[in-house]
């Protein structure tokens, strides 16, 4: 499996993602500069966290017009697996590859903490190795992760089971007390209608080794590794 990790000016989680793919999974990862117009034959695209273009104007608003995003859009529309983590999720929202937008956290604070997240859908390339309802413990680190969409859009997301991750308590119960930022319906991550594009605010790539306090995030990377292996077997 080859993962293209897109690097915008201001990205800061690209090496964490690259490390997980290369050193933990033993797969191929390539950093792709945002001005590049090719994805270098990657099987998976990962938009990492950070502060692309300083978060000026709105998070992700300027990054979405980077030259590489045309290729990412083409890749996504072809059904290939794309994941946006934190700022990468915000870029996917601005690019219209996922519905909704981010507001400032209701606390108005930048929040950096471990959270529990429930896996609500296991039929995406990034969650197929999870068990339904599995609770994983991974960190968040954001000031604008308060997911918002119009009520009819949220209803649509729920009906089509596009809510992939929801903030919850350690026992998996979902309530306002386990909502760190005010996101509507405790939404931590969603997928596209085609299910191949996934965005989430928490950072699975920062929780892939026990030395870092949790290895719960690794299952997302193992999932996409299996998804890519299965799709290449079908193609053969």
């Amino acid at each position: 499996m080859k993962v293209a990790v897109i690097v915008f000016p201001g990205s800061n989680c690209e090496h964490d993602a690259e490390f997980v793919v290369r050193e933990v999974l033993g797969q191929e990862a390539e950093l792709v500069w945002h001005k590049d117009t090719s994805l270098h034959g990657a099987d998976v695209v990962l938009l990492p966290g950070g502060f692309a273009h300083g978060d000026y104007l709105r998070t992700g608003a300027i990054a979405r017009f980077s030259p590489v995003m045309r290729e990412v859009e083409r890749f996504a529309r072809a059904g290939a697996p794309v994941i946006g983590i934190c700022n990468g999720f915000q870029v996917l929202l601005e690019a219209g590859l996922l519905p909704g937008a981010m507001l400032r956290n209701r606390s108005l604070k930048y929040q950096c903490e471990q959270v529990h997240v429930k896996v609500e859908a296991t039929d995406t390339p990034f969650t197929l190795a999870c068990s339904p309802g599995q609770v994983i413990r991974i960190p968040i680190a954001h000031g604008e992760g308060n997911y918002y969409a119009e009520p009819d859009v949220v209803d649509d997301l729920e009906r089509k089971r596009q809510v992939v991750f929801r903030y919850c308590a350690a026992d998996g119960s979902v309530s306002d007390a386990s909502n760190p930022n005010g996101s509507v319906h405790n939404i931590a991550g969603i997928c596209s209608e085609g299910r191949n594009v996934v965005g989430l605010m928490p950072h699975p790539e920062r929780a892939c080794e026990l030395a870092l306090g949790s290895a719960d995030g690794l299952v997302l990377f193992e999932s996409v590794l299996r998804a890519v292996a299965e799709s290449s077997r079908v193609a053969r």
Partner: protein
Amino acid sequence: MRARVYVTLKPSVFDPQGTTVADALHTLGYASVKDVRQGKFFELDIDAASVGDVRRIAQEVADKLLSNPVIESYRIDVESGVQGQAGEGSR
């Protein structure tokens, strides 16, 4: 010519920054300030032949980049005074 674009959160969208500013004003004794909505303001200096063109370009960039239609709406004012004239002219 100059176009001014005012971008604000839609009325249906919660504005935690505006609420915090309103709380601060209440602390300062301004009980009469019932609500605050915070927004963004852009001044665009546009080289175009007519007021209509300036407005069209301002609208295009507001749709494309300056605002996010999911959470924001905008209003545009075009300053139609003679180019190069000093002063704001608003009283």
